[in-house]
C-alpha cells in the first residue's frame, strides 16, 4: 500500500507484488493477467492497462519481471496527459484458474504538473 505520485511529462515505474490472504506472494502464471485502472470511481477511466498489451504510447505491465512474483508497471508520459489531480488506481488480477478478475488493491494515485 502506498501513495503513487506521478508527474506529467515523466515516466513512472513501479513494481507490483500480489499477495494472498496469508501475505504470501502470488506468482502470476502464463494465462493470468494484471490490470490497472486509473480514474475517478463512477466516471470513465483515464487509463486502463493490461499486462501483455502495451498502450498506444508504449506503457506496459510486464509480469514476473524483473523477478518472479514482481511485476513491473511502466507508464509513458503520453499516457499521463490527463488533468492533474487525485485519482484511484485499481489493481486487478485475472485468475485464469477461476476465469475471473479479482480485486488486488486500490491505491491513491496523485498526478502533478511537472
Amino acid at each position, binding site marked *: *500500500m502506498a501513495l503513487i505520485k506521478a508527474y506529467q511529462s515523466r515516466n513512472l515505474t513501479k513494481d507490483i507484488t500480489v499477495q494472498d490472504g496469508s501475505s504470501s506472494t502470488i506468482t502470476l502464471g502464463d494465462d493470468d493477467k494484471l490490470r490497472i485502472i486509473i480514474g475517478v470511481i463512477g466516471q470513465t477511466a483515464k487509463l486502463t492497462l493490461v499486462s501483455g498489451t502495451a498502450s498506444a504510447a508504449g506503457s506496459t505491465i510486464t509480469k514476473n519481471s524483473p523477478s518472479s512474483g514482481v511485476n513491473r508497471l511502466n507508464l509513458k508520459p503520453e499516457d499521463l496527459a490527463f488533468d492533474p489531480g*487525485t485519482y484511484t488506481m485499481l489493481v486487478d488480477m485475472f485468475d485464469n484458474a477461476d476465469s475471473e478478475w479479482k480485486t488486488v488493491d486500490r491505491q491513491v494515485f496523485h498526478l502533478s504538473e511537472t
Partner: protein
Amino acid sequence: MVRIADPSEIILEIGLSSAITEEQRAVVETSLTKAEGAIRRHLGYDPVQAARTEYYPNMDVDAANQAFQWDANDSTAFQARISSAIFDELQLRHIPLRASTAPRVFIDTDGRFGSKSGAFAAGTERTIGDDWWPQYDGNDDASSAICRDGILRSHGLWPTTPGSVKVIYTAGYTSDELHGKDALVDASPIFDAVVDETVRRVIKAFNRRKSSAGFMAGPLTSEKLGDYSYTLSGAGTAILSGGEYDLMPETQEKLAAFINMGWMIAS
C-alpha cells in the same frame, strides 16, 4: 449517481494514502456517500452535470407576477397594469443550465406530466430564441453559454397547468469546475464542502469506537517521552467531528452561493 469527490481525495486529505486498511477505506466510502447526500439535500439539487427531463410547473399558481404602477390624470390616481407576458419566468430545479447540449422545451396544456399517451408530441416543441430563451449570463471555458440562475423566459406567459411544460436540459458543474480547475466557472466550494464533511464523518465514525480514537489522534493535551504516553483532548476532537449536525455552519456558509433560491421560492 456520479460522485462529487473520489474516495482517494478523502484518503489523501486524512493522511492515510500510504497505510489505509480495507475497513478504513469502507468507512471513507460510506462517509463520502453520506456527506454528498447531505450536501445535495442542502443545495436542493444535484450539482454534478447531467442530462435531465423534467415537467413544470409543479403546482397550480395564479398569475401573481403581474405588475402594476401608479399613475394619475388631472383629478384621479389610478393603477395601470403592466403586462408581464413579455418576460414570464420559469425556474428550473437544477442549475446551472448549460448550452453545450441545447435545451428543449415542449408545451402541451394537457400533457399531464408526460403520462398521457401522445403527450408532448414533436409538434409541441417550442423554438428557443423565438418562443422562449434561457437567461444566459456567461460562458464556460468551452465558450458554451451558461445560465447560472436556471431561469427560462417566455415570449408569452408560461402555462400554469401542472405538468404542461416539458424541459429537456443539461445542468450542473463539470468535474473541473467542481475542483477549481476551470478559469471561468468556479464551483470548488462544493467540492471543498464535500471533503470537509466527509472527513468529519470519518473522524466521528472512529471516535465512536471504545478502543481508541481511531487513526486520527486529534489535539494532544500532553505528551511524555520517558515511559511514553500521551493524552488526547476529547473536547478538541468533538469540535473536529462536529456533533450530530447534518452540515456544519461553516459548510453551509460555503454553499450559500450555490443554493437554488429561485427554485425554493417557485416550487
